[in-house]
């Protein structure tokens, strides 16, 4: 593969979950991921941002091969994910690491650390126990865990949240991945260790030149850990741009309201009226017609936003936003 080609590319990706009644009657689909296009370059760190239920985690699972895409495709290093079988699929799984939200839940509670770190290596055919042990120790060092001997024989519940998450990261790194998908990796950790873990992930990403897909609902941490941001809403990417560009010049009304929700930490304007998106995120079972954000959008244009789906506009250099407001006919 050439250096310039993207490592991972998703085109027109849909992941729908069918709802059935009595086991066979199809009554509808939950459109968790509904037409997503993006490309991730090698060594790039990107963040997927959005409210709960916007399809971020479903997207992550689709990329990991845990959900079969309903339509569209994922291409990794030139190979299409849905065509991979057997050995090739195992190789793909080894090249994509997964860091989950809940570090305690992500570790099998009945295995000690040594055992659970051995598992991926055993599955991927590292037969020699000494070689496994060596790789495990190297990775534990990389995630800055000290007193390795002690930790190896401990069970997950004996470790702190930060240690648990380091183990989860170590497990994701064990198989020498080219990409790591981190699904809200710090949201369940103490505020005090969040920054540590994020810095660790960022450092490892830089040292190993990994592609890091970082899924979060917390815009406040994104600036330091991502190169690019994708804002997701109701199963779609509504805005994408390099991190500073997006945070400083948000174009989509949804992004603007998300940023407004976190920007004001001053007590003075706590009572000030803000255009925080009102209402609930839309139902993924029956998404609203037209722009999916229009029922909550303060700038919705009646007759346009609620009828036609917005195409992708590029209001600024390298900054894309799916919103009718950028249409020159309406004048942004």
């Amino acid at each position, binding site marked *: 593969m050439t250096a310039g080609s993207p490592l991972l590319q998703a085109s027109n990706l849909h992941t729908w979950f069918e709802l059935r009644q009595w086991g066979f009657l199809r009554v509808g689909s939950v459109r968790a991921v509904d037409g997503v296009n993006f490309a991730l370059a090698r060594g790039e760190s990107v963040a997927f941002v959005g409210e709960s239920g916007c399809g971020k985690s479903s997207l992550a699972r689709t990329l990991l*091969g845990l959900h079969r895409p309903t339509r569209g495709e994922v291409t990794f290093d030139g190979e299409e994910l849905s065509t991979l079988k057997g050995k090739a699929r195992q190789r793909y799984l080894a090249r994509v690491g997964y860091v989950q939200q809940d570090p305690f839940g992500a570790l*099998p*509670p009945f295995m000690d650390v040594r055992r659970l770190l051995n598992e991926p290596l055993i599955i991927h055919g590292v037969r020699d126990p000494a070689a496994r042990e060596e790789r495990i120790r190297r990775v534990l060092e990389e995630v800055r865990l000290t007193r390795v001997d002690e930790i190896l024989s401990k069970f997950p519940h004996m470790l702190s949240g930060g240690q648990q998450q380091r183990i989860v990261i170590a497990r994701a790194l064990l198989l020498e991945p080219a990409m790591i998908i981190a699904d809200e990796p710090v949201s369940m950790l103490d505020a005090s260790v969040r920054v540590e873990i994020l810095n660790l992930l960022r450092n490892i990403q830089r040292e190993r030149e990994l592609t890091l897909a970082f899924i979060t609902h917390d815009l406040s941490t994104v600036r330091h850990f991502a190169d690019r941001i994708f804002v997701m809403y109701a199963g779609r990417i509504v805005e994408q741009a390099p991190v500073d560009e997006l945070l400083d010049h948000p174009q989509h009304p949804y992004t603007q309201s998300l940023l407004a929700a976190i920007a004001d930490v001053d007590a003075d304007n706590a009572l000030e009226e803000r255009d925080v998106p009102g209402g609930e995120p839309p139902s993924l079972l029956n998404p609203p017609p037209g722009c999916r954000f229009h029922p909550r959008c303060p700038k919705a244009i009646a007759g346009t936003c609620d009828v036609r789906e917005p195409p992708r506009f590029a209001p600024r250099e390298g900054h894309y936003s799916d919103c009718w407001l950028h249409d020159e006919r309406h004048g942004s």
Partner: protein
Amino acid sequence: MNRWAAGLRELKQYPSAIGGLAIILFLIGLSLYTVVTIPYSEALDKWRGGEQWRMHPVNAGPVWADRLAGGDKPRTQVVRSTETEIREVPFEGGRQVRIPLEFDYHNGEFPSEINLFLRTLDSSRQAFVRLNWKTPSGETIALGGQRVARDDRISISQNPSLEGRLGMVPHIGLFAGDSPPDAPEVEKGRYRLVLDAILFDEDARLEADLAVYGRVHGVAGTDYQRRNLMVALMWGTPVALAFGLLAAVGTTITTLIIAATGVWFRGIVDATIQRLTEVNIILPLLPILVMVGTLYSTSIWLMLGVVIVLGIFSAGIKTYRAMLLPIREAPYIEAARAYGASNARIIMRYMIPRILPVLIPTFVTLIPTFVFLEASLAVLGLGDPVLPTWGKVLNDAQEQSALYNGFYYWVISPAVLLMLTGLGFAMFGFALDRVFNPRLRTQ
């Protein structure tokens, strides 16, 4: 620190765990001792009964029970001609032989039976014997004479003419001395049975064994076929433990794997398993076993197979499924899929170990239920045709109306062993439950 090790250490705090474990270890020890001292084939041969038990009394109680009750019931005495001085007088074409069989009798109660076993060696013609009974007071009672076959038994107790002369059953009358027939009392002292034989061959020899059967025998007593009950009680232990353990292991493991498979694959696999289970739960186990036993074979291993096969799709599947469903969605399983664990690996290494600690107590308490099932089948007359088991002892006792006849030991000893098994496993299982079942954990 391993959670199993920690759990076992915690077990020490529970007296019921110690008690239960002691009982289980005792039973295991007894099993091992039995299997080593009485090999399988020997046990089967012994339990088949027959001539090998001829020196044992019929329906004798255990010695210790009699002594505890303050009784003085006799044990069996065997007097052998090979240990006495034989006087021989040769004559033309044969020999006259006198064998005195002497023994001391000091018990307060009469023996239960008297038999004389005769064996003629190196003789082509039948010998003739005449018996005389000499009591301690010097009285001589003639027991008559008869021809003896090569291998013969003279049942002195069942000699009607002698009974008529004595006015009492011979084994009482011969020991009663001068006491009246309606209240006989034992005359204590040295008795002698003098055997005068005429052998019609110069090389012929005669061996005689006198058995004065007692009313108590050994630790466990004997049954109506003179068999020592100890054989069955001892051999019943490994059989019961093996049956219980194999049935519990066989049903638990298969059930667990099938439940986990259904939960993991969902859809049609799960639905099939659930429907099969629902049908199977309704099937009555005992009548099916009775049917198999009546129509096909009562071999204990066949019964074990049927129990396991019918136990696979048992109600346990529903319980395990309920426990496994939330585990299926656990993040660590998602992580395992993400690093490429196969379906089989996820089921065996990620789902089942999660609920294993909770199942251990259930498993331990399940063992005695299968032991009882096997005993129930035996009591119903569907016991293994050759193996001695506790249930078969109970079945024999019931057929011989043991309690009506006062042979309480015949019922009590296997029952006590069965109860001990149940108690031991239950005590241990409940303690395990406290340690491994988090819902019951205090503090």
